[in-house]
């Protein structure tokens, strides 16, 4: 049923329809509304049977989830940013043990400096962990992806995180068509574990694996993710059959058929990009956009196919590897090796910096002129950066950079005569 609803609430309602049996979470902005809503549902008895556990840290949250999963229960949790880092050991552990936990990651920047706003640095921090990472463009897709996520995770025995932009999606109120219980039940059967702690059939889970076998165990995990490259589109297709909606899959293309330049991005910024693309198209530019939904496993083949024909690819992302460059851009470049296509990296929106349609229009114009640098930080306040560099050059005890920058920006906004 189509409802005007806050993104977090839509996720909570949808997760509840997936009949999780153990839900545990530790609060962190901007995921709090999701967990609060699920908690209320459990307490009122609307979501039952389900154990809702208030844990003492994110590390506990993932630990409780994986313990529950190992005992055969469908387990769910949610976190962001610092919380993800705090549970990182357990995140790797869940993937390594092959436990199909589903988690919402409300993408948020990682500090220091502390920042509660959206970017993708948290997801990037665990991209090698063995978790499947799916990025939602809208709240509709975010909700739908959770249903697909449980199905995918349990089929493959691989944990799945659904990434949705913190605040931008989680706290946006928009129309979401919520599924009904019957549809979800038909799509998502009860959890049938590959391994389970059962006194009737005792097994030891989590033993040490030495040099003789570790490589093979890791490779098997890799193969499971490669399997996911097939299962993700198949499950999305099945979802389409069940709901009439195209959510999920590996990549989405928009106006790429005859495009010279294709923009690549993940998450909610795709919406703004599409508006900018339409405007540039009206101005005669042959430009399109590809959204990556499945970041891990990385759909290299689908990416190559989607970008074939473009002479220039502009990867716009909300993350970067300090001292190196874009993260997604690196993966895209690797996929495009040998294609002759030029790849330009644009880092934008870090720490919640708004990405405006106007900025994108200017960026795309520049790209069309072939004037885009290899690595660009969109809307960077260059003078502020220069001032801090100068400060550091002049004085050893130049003070904390972040505070200096904030002070500069504060002074600027006050301006003369205000």
């Amino acid at each position, binding site marked *: 049923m189509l409802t005007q609803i806050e993104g977090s609430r839509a996720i909570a309602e949808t997760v509840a329809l997936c009949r999780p049996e153990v839900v545990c979470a530790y609060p962190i902005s901007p995921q709090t509304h999701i967990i609060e809503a699920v908690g209320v549902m459990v307490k009122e008895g609307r979501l039952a049977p389900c154990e809702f556990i208030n*844990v003492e840290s994110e590390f506990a949250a993932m*630990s409780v989830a994986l*313990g529950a999963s190992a005992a055969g229960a469908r387990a769910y949790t949610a976190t962001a940013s610092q919380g993800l880092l705090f549970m990182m050991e357990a995140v790797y552990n869940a993937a390594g043990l092959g436990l199909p936990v589903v988690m919402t990651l409300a993408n948020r920047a990682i500090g220091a400096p502390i920042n509660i706003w959206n970017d993708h640095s948290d997801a990037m921090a665990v991209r090698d962990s063995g978790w499947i990472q799916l990025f939602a463009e809208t709240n509709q897709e975010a909700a739908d992806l959770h249903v697909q996520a449980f199905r995918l995770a349990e089929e493959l025995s691989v944990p799945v995180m659904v990434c949705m932009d913190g605040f931008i999606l989680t706290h946006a109120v928009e129309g979401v068509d919520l599924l009904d219980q019957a549809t979800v039940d038909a799509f998502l059967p009860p959890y049938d574990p590959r391994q389970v702690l059962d006194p009737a059939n005792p097994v030891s889970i989590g033993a040490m694996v030495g040099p003789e076998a570790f490589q093979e165990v890791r490779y098997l995990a890799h193969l499971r993710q490669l399997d996911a490259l097939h299962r993700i589109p198949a499950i999305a297709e099945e979802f389409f059959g069940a709901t009439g909606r195209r959510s999920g899959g590996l990549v989405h293309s928009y106006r790429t058929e005859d495009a010279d330049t294709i923009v690549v991005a993940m998450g909610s910024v795709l919406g703004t990009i599409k508006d900018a693309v339409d405007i540039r198209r009206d101005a005669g530019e042959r430009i399109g956009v590809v959204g990556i939904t499945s970041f891990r496993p990385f759909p290299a083949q689908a990416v190559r196919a989607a970008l074939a024909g473009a002479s220039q690819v502009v990867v716009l992302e909300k993350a970067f590897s300090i001292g190196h460059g874009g993260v997604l851009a690196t993966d895209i470049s690797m996929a495009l090796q040998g294609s002759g296509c030029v790849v330009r990296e644009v880092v934008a929106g870090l720490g919640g910096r708004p990405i405006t349609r106007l900025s994108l229009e200017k960026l795309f114009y520049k790209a069309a002129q072939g004037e885009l640098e290899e690595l660009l930080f969109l809307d960077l306040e260059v003078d502020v950066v220069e001032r801090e560099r100068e400060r550091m050059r002049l004085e050893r005890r130049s003070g904390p950079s972040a505070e200096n920058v904030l002070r500069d920006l504060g002074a600027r906004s006050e301006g003369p005569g205000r």
Partner: protein
Amino acid sequence: MTKRPIRFYQVGSFAVGNRLLSDAERTVQSDPQRSNSIDSGHRACQGCGEALGARYALDAAMRAANNQLVAVNATGCLEVFSTPYPETSWRIPWLHSLFGNAPAVATGVAAALRVKGRSDVRVVSQGGDGSTVDIGFGSLSGMFERNDDVLYICYDNEGYMNTGVQRSAATPPAARTATTDVVGPQPGNTFGQGKDLPRIAMAHDIPYVATATVADLHDLEAKVERAMSFRGARYLHVLVPCPLGWGSASNETIHIARLAKECGLFPVFEAEYGTVTAVSKIRRPVPVEEYLKLQKRFAHLFGKNPHPEMVTHLQEIANRNIERYGLLDADESPAARHAEVES
């Protein structure tokens, strides 16, 4: 002259398979039908107190749980020696996740069993002192606070033994470890205030807290059984000497554990909902030296450059325990005996 009660040790002895006892009074281990939760073939050191304690504790838990039990294990000696790739010595469902999360993982297991209507299956979580007192402390406290239905057993060998004998918050003062070496003006571990996990557990007001040693295996089993009669968070702290880490003879593990109790350094007691309910009194009081001298980790207190002040300090700690828990009857206290000798 004071009267001393004479005790007969034959019945109610420490012997495991005492033929003089009725079946009901025998240990679980003496039962050929025991579950052998941790079976032979594990790779523990000769004389390992933890292997001994774990075997007794888990079989007792299994019997109390009608063989419906799941074990969660922290990283550490027990986990490592019980699952040498590609073998496992566990005959019960067993999960090892990480070093610091055994209590939280157990919470998850218990929740899953409950939601699936299998509350008949009980959960034991276990780890060494390192995982319990240090890195897993937060998740242990969380489990206690929620009163999750988990029995947590800490096998305390007073250090990070599996990684090469490093100091933990449970390492006693003066003890030599690789990170509190016997060098400098203050050799061995510092004299801090310690981290008394049993008392911290009691402060959470959980249903059952108890301490035990591998010197009295009947007592250990009985405490496990008692713990299993409760639902909610329960904590068992078992002293398990480590011949390697303590520098003791591998055939003296049980003897040393007994001395730890009898000198007062390791009080043995039970508590329910935050209040001590029973105390295992010292039978034959001994000065701490008798206990310390059997362990090379305390060798620097004696010998060529002795540190009698450290021994005195340790004795004071023992005396404080004796007083706090009432481990000796009034006329048997060190002070009283001292007075008696004087007269």
